[in-house]
């Protein structure tokens, strides 16, 4: 802010936020994962959707996820301010006011749900509305500051997009789409707890009851191992029900084995730099693992479509 702005209090209250600050409110990195998983859900779903309507549906799902992110940043500004990882977000840094973030999130929520309803169907739109509600209210407002199981239950919000993409085509939720949900749902705890182990001081300072802060590091390492042991076979479920082929099964088997290997590393290495390295390795590989699973599903389906029409 310039000196001239500071000498006039009313001018100082005017926003200096640029469009890029509002874009940052949408959590673009999370949004890119949402776009990808929703696209896989949409492509895998039986039935047909016009490509233009399909593209608009994916866009609406992405904006809906971004709106939920903006609402999260509005509500969490106080704790974001004290954590190193989040202190430079637009609201805690003072570039966007809390009321601007709230109205931005609410307006985009309504628009995204409306556009998805018009482009595909109102079942998918309802599911998107529920996803936004789940992330912004159930996770952000209720669970995050209350229980160490916050990301276990809250992880559902991040797991819904492939179901919404599926519903955009079929106007329904089936066991196959639920399996896509389940993979992300079970993937979330080991992914975030690996990060939380490294950043536990940040979370403790902000008063967020992440598992390492509340239950201790040893318990968190055990829980990471248990969830990963559950994740590896869950990753194979799409193959078991015929939703995926052998190429996917190979990726899921190798990826699951890699996840287990790294989770064992996190469980065994508990002290010093080696322990931190093990956590970062699992965190990084978990992103690659999830991406590889969904990419394999997508490539297999596109290949089948190109071959058999």
């Amino acid at each position, binding site marked *: 802010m310039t000196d001239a702005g500071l000498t006039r209090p009313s*001018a100082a209250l005017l926003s200096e936020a640029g*469009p890029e600050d509002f874009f940052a409110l949408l959590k673009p990195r999370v949004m890119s994962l949402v776009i990808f998983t929703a696209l896989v859900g949409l492509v895998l779903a039986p039935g047909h959707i016009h490509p233009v309507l399909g593209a608009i549906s994916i866009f609406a799902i992405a904006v809906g996820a971004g709106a939920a992110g903006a609402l999260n940043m509005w509500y969490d500004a106080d704790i974001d301010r004290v954590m190193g990882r989040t202190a430079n977000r637009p609201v805690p840094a003072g570039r966007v006011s809390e009321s601007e973030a709230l109205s931005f999130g609410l307006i985009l929520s309504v628009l995204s749900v409306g556009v998805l309803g018009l482009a595909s169907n109102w079942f998918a739109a309802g599911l998107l509305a529920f996803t936004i509600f789940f992330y912004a209210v159930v996770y952000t407002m209720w669970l995050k500051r209350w229980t160490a199981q916050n990301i276990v239950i809250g992880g559902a919000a991040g797991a819904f997009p492939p179901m919404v993409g599926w519903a955009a085509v079929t106007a329904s939720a089936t066991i196959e789409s639920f399996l896509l949900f389940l993979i992300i749902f079970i993937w979330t705890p080991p992914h975030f707890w690996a990060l939380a182990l490294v950043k536990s001081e940040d979370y403790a300072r902000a008063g967020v009851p992440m598992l390492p802060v509340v239950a201790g590091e040893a318990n968190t390492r055990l829980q990471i191992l248990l969830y990963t042991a559950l994740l590896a076979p869950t990753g194979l479920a799409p193959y078991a029900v015929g939703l995926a082929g052998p190429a996917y099964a190979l990726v899921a088997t190798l990826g699951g084995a890699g996840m287990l290997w790294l989770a064992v590393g996190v469980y065994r290495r508990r002290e010093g730099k080696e322990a931190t390295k093990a956590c970062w390795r699992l965190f990084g590989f978990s992103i690659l693992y999830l991406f590889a699973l969904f990419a394999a599903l997508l490539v297999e389906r596109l290949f089948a479509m190109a071959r058999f029409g």
Partner: protein
Amino acid sequence: MMAMAEPGKQPEGIVLTEEQKRKQRRRSVALALCIGGLVVLFYLITVVKLGPGILVRKL
């Protein structure tokens, strides 16, 4: 309300800094683009969903 100052006179009311003016312009352009984009989206949805039926209506 922003007051316009006469030449040589001290402006009254809120005076935006150059940075605030620049950011306000950029926000306005972004908002205009978003609204334009929304219009295009609704147009596309209408045309794709109704197709030739777009002309089938009571006059």
